[in-house]
């Protein structure tokens, strides 16, 4: 009865994996015959400034997205963990952007971010601030996309933290209170350590999500301005389906996957030690 999986595995997992090992040594645009190029794809990769820039952009995205996401999710989860009315309503509301397609969110936020007519700049100028070139300047564009992605995903992480918070025994807080621990101390000495597993989960899930960053820059900025939002996935997509460099794109994907696994391993080590 496990035959369906075995068949599926052979065709859609094992074969593509093996084929990718084959592709990375070839130059191929699907139409003309394959050409053996040895390690030249890797040689090209290590001299590909754009690719490393795209990885750097993706890391910039993660560096803003992950801390922001953890802070916001933890904050709202702690509010939702209190006995308040409309809890279910707020929970459902925060979760709404999670289920809506990223395309919708991106089209919507492109308008919120619009320099002249966007809601955010309208509110800023109403309160006497300067307009911010959210997606029109190379400095702001990636942070803006990171803020949008946080807005989209934070609902899921609120739920994960909420599950974690509900697993903390009440008596720990009561005992701490009797010992005279202030709320801040209770947060740092009880809540945070107890959430270590959830934290690791949140970090890894948002890292995997962040490394797949594609549709947001694809729809919103096309990778610009000045390639500042060119994510690694977008670059690989362009190499494969815009330029038709299949062998090279497979090499990029292969290398990028190694980067992802390495980053996740490092994160695991760091979080587990703390």
């Amino acid at each position, binding site marked *: 009865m496990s035959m*369906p*999986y075995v068949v*599926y595995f052979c065709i*859609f997992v094992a074969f593509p994996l093996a084929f990718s090992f084959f592709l990375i040594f070839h130059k191929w645009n699907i139409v003309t015959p394959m050409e053996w190029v040895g390690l030249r794809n890797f040689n090209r990769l290590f001299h590909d400034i754009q690719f490393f820039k795209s990885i750097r952009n993706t890391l910039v995205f993660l560096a803003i997205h992950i801390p922001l996401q953890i802070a916001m999710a933890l904050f709202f989860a702690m509010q939702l963990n209190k006995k308040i009315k409309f809890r279910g309503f707020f929970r459902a509301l925060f979760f709404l952007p999670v289920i809506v*397609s990223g395309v919708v969110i991106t*089209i919507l936020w492109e308008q919120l971010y619009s320099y002249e007519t966007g809601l955010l700049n309208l509110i800023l100028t109403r309160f006497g601030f300067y307009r911010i070139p959210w997606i029109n300047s190379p400095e702001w564009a990636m942070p803006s996309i990171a803020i949008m992605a946080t807005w989209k995903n934070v609902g899921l992480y609120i739920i*994960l933290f909420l599950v974690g918070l509900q697993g903390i025994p009440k008596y720990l807080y009561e005992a701490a209170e009797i010992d005279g621990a202030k709320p801040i101390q209770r947060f740092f000495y009880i809540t945070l350590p107890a959430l270590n597993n959830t934290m690791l*989960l949140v970090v890894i899930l948002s890292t995997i999500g962040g490394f797949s960053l594609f549709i947001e820059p694809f729809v919103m900025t096309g990778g610009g301005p000045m390639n500042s939002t060119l994510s690694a996935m977008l670059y*690989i997509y362009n190499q494969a389906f815009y330029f038709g460099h299949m062998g090279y794109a497979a090499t990029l994907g292969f290398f990028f996957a190694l980067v992802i696994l390495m980053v996740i391993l490092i994160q695991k080590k760091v979080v587990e030690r703390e």
Partner: protein
Amino acid sequence: MEKKSRIWVYITMTFGGLIFAYPFLWMLSATFKPEMEIAEIGLMSANFSLDNYRVVFNKIPIGRALLNSIFVSSCVTFSAVMFGSIVGYALSRLRFWGRELILGIILFTMVIPFQITLIPMYILMVKFGWVDTYLSLIVPGMISTFGILLFRQFFLDIPQDLIDAARIDGCSDLAILFRIFFPLSKPVIITVGILSFMGSWNDVLWPLIVVRVRELMTMPQMVTLFKVGGQAESQISSQLAAAALLAIPIVIVYAFFQRYFIESMATTGLKN
């Protein structure tokens, strides 16, 4: 809780709620407004009309795209539940040679980033002649490894007595699975169903790669290309109208089954 801190909680929650709700309301209102009035903070306008939606329906076959999306996602969901439960049953309740090996492989494949197999998968679709057919959208999603693991985990807790009794009555394994296990497994069926459906429904990258003909495009893909491909001719309101049309079906379903959605998506937390 003291009164003061209670009020503080309500203030922050209301503010937070506004941050999440207002953009959606703003978008919805903008889709009914003429382009000229888009630069407004408020929601109301004297000139509400359906013009923006008319533009979308005239320029792209979005109804067809909706049907494509429903068809593709339903096939993927049905098959992920079927195969997920069958394989999950085998891995949890049957003893056979290679069981541990298969389980190990499943856990291993969950670690592989999809970035590594994306290009080879596309080439596979080309070689199978599946590009620009429904097959390329459906077949690669027919089995969900995570779904298998969820079913396996759930089935492990069903008492062996039930199986033994059914065996004595002469039931086959498939009969045991569908007649005895299924009625007990509503939560896991819903979870795998929702996860597969959402995964398939919201995917854009894969359809962009394997489907180029308009007639087969999924709804998110078509809206993406409407926006990126310049068909919207930089008409902001009609872009937003297309986005709203894309959001509405899933928001309606979410409104009714909100609890199931949240619980199911939260199980992605078990992934690691």
